[in-house]
């Protein structure tokens, strides 16, 4: 199961007409009170199925199988349920579902998990069915109670009505009775033209708690008797503890214990500050025998050496070698090196463990793959999986960081918990330094591009070589290394894309938009350069290489129109454009850029057009585009994790791993293409185009292509 498999199987799933999407009946454990985000009042909640509970107070609580860390699944999934249930938006609530790899599987992955911008896509039909099922059960209950035919009962805005007998009721009065009705197997779903909630800007369900400090994140769980544990980690990847002296650490007021675990040295204390102070007081000697000791510059030099070796073939159409041998060609070459990037979610990784009286353990964490967390923790704690409950919490961002097969973070947290005995509740937290230096980065990549232009100014050949770590740890082709390049959208008769997998002790991971973080940049800056070489306009030139009817062309035309592309930009500014498809969604962006006072790019405005199929909640889609633009822009302008001489990680916190700030955020305008296609994701697709759009504008301003990232490194260099 990979993000790639996720994407392809998602397509298969959406295309698979007649596929039956089961709505499981409520599992037994749902009779217990839900943990996580409180659903509201003290009313009794009656499960209609695994995803919908109706309260005697008329509330409808949706159990979200997807974690809410900002991309809006609570609101999105609740919208789908509410639509088919004919509920009123004000009665909707959402909580995280319990952990169950079957009932709460992401239908695109086959196990419970969030990622690949798949939440709405995989749940689109399933959640609508869950709502329709609950609606049918409420109607059946009302029909029984009122002794009228079910077919005569209507539902509107959360009210059940029988016109003939002038009877009317909210849902709550029938919650009990409805829960005992037979679950209909194939409830009829609405025709999209009858949607009243889907497609509207419904207020987000999690906003209020996030504006008054009441939203609870993992870090906020503070049971009585809590121990806080912080681990001293090495500053080199692959280093291990040689020896340590904890005598000073143990003297720190509040420090309770110190233990060695495979990942480092854990300090346990009665409060967070004592744990931090205790960790500072440790003396640890690290063994670098197996550590990465090369610097980023040395790694880059090794990467580019692969350019001329035969690689793994990702695309090969026409005959590139022959095309480059033609007479009268102009050849353009480019080499770009992409740095490691940390995700730096606002809430560093953390987890809370609480042992119940029966010896079972509750884990509270921002679980992106809760089933993996459960398996890993059960193994380490030597418990049955059934005795480990993973209670997914709101998380302060992820951007890919928490989506880890094998849950290495949970391994560390569970080992820390196990090492101290586990009788007191325990919070394991990473500091920002642990996060920035913790690896699982967007890997470093080197691209080599070669393009041929014939005498008539046509791009006849494109060759691209990509060198970097395989996120999926593959020996053969890793599609996440080449996605976006191997399926180049432009019609170029001779295309060859190859890749080389590099192995390093630095753990790699997907980072918001995965392969598109670098392929989108490489492809979209290079096509822009080739078009410039033949004097073609970046928009017109791209359109000429795309199918007129394609969704790529659709968003590109739209973004150009929004930006009034043909007009002259204000004095001192230039505009650049880029279009990237990722996770089934199409996004084009135009960036207007000038040279700032400090010599770095100043991005004034970004116009963004997105085609993500049916827009379930336009407001959330726009928010994701805005956020994706800020996230992508910050990285392209400022960010790199670098290994210095000897392999030491050079960055440690937000002062040297810069994040975009409000004064650097451009004005953003977003338009959504109207579509009847099944919805696709929006969490990631806003990210890839902004970097190349800015770089293309920068090339116009400075006459120099961006071949090195982040862009500020070009200025200070």
């Amino acid at each position, binding site marked *: 199961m990979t993000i790639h498999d996720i994407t392809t199987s998602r397509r298969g799933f959406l295309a698979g007409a007649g596929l039956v999407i089961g709505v499981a009946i409520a599992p037994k454990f749902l009779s217990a009170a839900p943990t996580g985000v409180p659903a509201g009042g003290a009313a009794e909640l009656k499960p209609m199925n695994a995803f919908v509970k109706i309260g005697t107070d008329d509330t409808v609580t949706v159990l979200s199988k997807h974690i809410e*860390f*900002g*991309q809006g699944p609570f609101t999105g999934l609740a919208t789908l349920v509410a639509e088919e249930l004919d509920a009123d938006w004000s009665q909707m609530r959402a909580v995280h579902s319990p952990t169950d790899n079957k009932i709460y599987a992401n239908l695109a992955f086959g196990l419970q998990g969030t990622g690949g911008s798949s939440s709405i896509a995989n749940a689109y039909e399933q959640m609508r069915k869950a709502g329709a099922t609950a609606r049918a059960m409420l109607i059946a209950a009302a029909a029984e109670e009122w002794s009228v035919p079910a077919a005569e009962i209507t539902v509107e805005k959360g009210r059940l009505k029988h016109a003939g007998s002038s009877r009317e009721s909210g849902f709550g009065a029938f919650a009990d009775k409805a829960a005992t009705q037979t679950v209909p197997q194939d409830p009829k779903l609405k025709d999209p033209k009858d949607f009243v909630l889907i497609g509207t800007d419904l*207020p*987000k369900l999690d*906003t*209020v*708690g*996030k*504006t*008054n*400090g*009441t*939203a*609870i*994140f993992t*870090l*906020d769980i*503070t049971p009585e008797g809590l121990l*806080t544990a912080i681990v001293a980690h090495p500053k080199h990847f692959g280093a291990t503890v040689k020896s340590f002296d904890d005598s000073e650490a143990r003297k720190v*007021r*509040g420090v309770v214990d110190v233990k060695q675990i495979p990942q480092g040295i854990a300090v346990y204390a009665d*409060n*967070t*500050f*004592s744990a*931090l*102070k205790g960790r500072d007081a440790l003396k640890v000697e690290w063994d670098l025998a197996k550590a990465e000791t090369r610097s980023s510059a040395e790694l880059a030099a090794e990467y580019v050496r692969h350019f001329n070796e035969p690689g793994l073939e990702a695309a090969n159409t026409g005959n590139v070698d022959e095309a480059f041998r033609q007479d009268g060609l102009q050849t353009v070459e480019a080499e770009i090196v992409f740095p490691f990037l940390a995700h*730096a*979610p*606002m*809430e*560093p990784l953390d987890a809370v463990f609480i042992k119940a009286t029966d010896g079972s353990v509750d884990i509270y964490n921002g679980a992106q793959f809760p089933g993996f967390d459960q398996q890993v923790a059960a193994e380490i704690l030597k418990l049955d999986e059934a005795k480990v409950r993973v209670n997914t919490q*709101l*998380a*302060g*961002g992820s*951007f890919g960081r928490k989506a880890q097969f094998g849950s290495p973070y949970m391994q560390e947290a569970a080992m820390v918990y196990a090492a101290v005995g586990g009788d007191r509740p325990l919070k394991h937290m990473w*500091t*920002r330094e642990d996060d920035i230096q913790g690896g699982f980065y967007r890997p470093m990549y080197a691209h080599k591009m070669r393009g041929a232009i014939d005498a008539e100014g046509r791009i006849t050949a494109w060759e691209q070589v990509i060198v970097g770590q395989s996120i999926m740890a593959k020996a053969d082709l890793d599609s996440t290394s080449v996605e976006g390049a191997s399926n180049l959208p432009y019609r170029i008769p001779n295309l060859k894309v190859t890749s080389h997998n590099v192995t390093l002790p630095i753990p790699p991971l997907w980072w918001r938009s995965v392969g598109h973080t670098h392929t989108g940049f490489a492809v979209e800056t290079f096509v822009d350069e080739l078009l410039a070489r033949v004097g073609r306009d970046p928009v017109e030139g791209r359109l000429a290489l795309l199918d007129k009817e394609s969704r790529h062309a659709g968003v590109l035309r739209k973004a150009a129109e929004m930006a009034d592309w043909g007009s002259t930009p204000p004095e001192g500014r230039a505009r650049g454009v880029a279009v990237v498809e990722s996770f089934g969604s199409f996004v084009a962006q135009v960036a207007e850029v000038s040279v700032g006072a400090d010599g770095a790019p100043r991005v004034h405005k970004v116009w963004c057009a997105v085609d993500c199929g049916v827009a379930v909640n336009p*407001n959330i889609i726009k*928010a994701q585009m*805005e*956020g*994706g*633009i*800020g*996230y992508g822009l*910050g990285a392209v302008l400022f960010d790199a994790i670098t290994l210095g001489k000897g392999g030491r990680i050079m960055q440690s*916190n*937000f*002062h040297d791993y810069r*994040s*975009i*700030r*409000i*004064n650097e*955020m451009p*004005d*953003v305008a977003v338009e959504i293409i109207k579509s009847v296609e099944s919805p696709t994701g929006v969490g990631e697709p806003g990210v890839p185009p902004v970097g190349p759009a800015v770089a293309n504008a920068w090339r116009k301003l400075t006459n120099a292509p961006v071949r090195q990232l982040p862009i500020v490194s070009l200025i200070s260099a």
Partner: protein
Amino acid sequence: MVTFTLNGKERSFDGDPDTPLLWVIRDFEKLTGTKYGCGVAQCGACTVHLDGMPRRSCITPIATIDGSDVVTIEGISGKEAQAVQTAWTGLDVPQCGYCQSGQIMSAVALLQMVPKPTDDEIDGAMTGNLCRCATYHRIRAAIHNAANSMEG
């Protein structure tokens, strides 16, 4: 022993005097709306009001605030606070939400000092508050909305 008021209530602390205010608020007072994001005054997630001014509680040792008045997200009130929170919900500003207590504390302090801030004044007051979800575009709009709502 350090004494201070926290959201209007008299509190005292007799633990390690180096303990940053952030951890006193979170670990000892169990008010968890104030967040940890960096610990080194780089992100603003821990912003509180100290004697009416925005302050990064992560670098404020408890010993230095004896006799001070501390207000956290749980305790803000007044017309600026209300205007800001209403504007925030009106635009659905938060994404993950983790930075938002700090953003709101900085925004409220700004409006208390400058009722109708310009974009530059917003930049000046809010630059210390990171949002990894990059909700900045809406933060700016919400501050303007809040300022406008207070005029009427």
